């Protein structure tokens, strides 16, 4: 019986940004540079950038409560043709905020005033990447975003820029 070796994960980059609004742009820029060097297609890069932006904004605002001295850690790992971006804050397990959106965003409801206009962040993340996972280790809350560098055969709309 022949076994196929799985490619070993390789860390491409790791950095931190201060938890200040707008710093998601620093994360986008650095992830884009690294992912481009790893050969990700243009369309997939745009999707990854949007997911990284939203996850970093959530980490800054909801995880670290905009406390600049608490960093958001970003790690970029390549495993074969997959790139994983891990975005960590120190918010621990999310608490149930009464004002938080718990249901899937629904534009019809939003236009009717039955949902507030905001609440698109997680929805965008889930729809942009191939896989999203959340882990919690004590206070460390990490969102793992995984994206293949190119689309599977037959996938539609994947190489748009």
């Amino acid at each position, binding site marked *: 019986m022949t076994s196929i070796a799985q490619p070993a994960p390789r860390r491409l980059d790791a950095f931190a940004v201060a938890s200040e609004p707008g710093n998601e742009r620093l994360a986008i820029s650095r992830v884009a540079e690294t992912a481009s060097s790893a050969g990700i297609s243009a369309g997939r890069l745009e999707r990854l950038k*949007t997911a990284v932006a939203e996850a970093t904004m959530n980490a800054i605002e909801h995880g670290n409560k905009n406390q600049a001295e608490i960093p958001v850690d970003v790690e970029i790992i390549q495993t074969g043709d997959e790139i994983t971006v891990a975005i960590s804050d120190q918010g621990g397990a999310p608490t149930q905020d009464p004002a938080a959106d718990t249901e899937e965003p629904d534009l019809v409801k*939003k*236009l009717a*005033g039955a949902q507030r206009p*905001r*609440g698109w962040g997680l929805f*965008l993340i889930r729809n942009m990447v191939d896989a999203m996972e959340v882990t919690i280790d004590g206070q460390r809350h990490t969102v793992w975003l995984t994206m293949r560098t190119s689309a599977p055969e037959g996938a539609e709309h994947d190489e*748009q820029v």
Partner: protein
Amino acid sequence: MTSRCDATTRTMPGAAVIELTGEVDGTAADVLTAAYQAAVTGTDVGVVVLDFASVVYINSTGIALIVSILARARAERRKVVASGLSAHYREIFDITRLSDFIELFPDLDHAVSQLTGPAA
């Protein structure tokens, strides 16, 4: 926080165009609201064109602002159309279903010619 978004507004018979530049995020709220107000005040505007050709970034808060503008326009019985979105942001308009309510044009010329007819 300082807005990274600018807007210029112009009107034509029956329609107003808001040309956006820069980044549509939470800091764009005042700019976008003021531009919409300027576009529809004192004129008989049935259609508002949002032109995104010079927009380089839209995030989830920006999407929420666009939803708010759309809700207000619909309440005022105005139509909203959009032009100049990149393929990536067209996809986001599709998955959020904004494109079910906002007709998308490849660029401003197409939008204007469609709205005003070939003689415009």
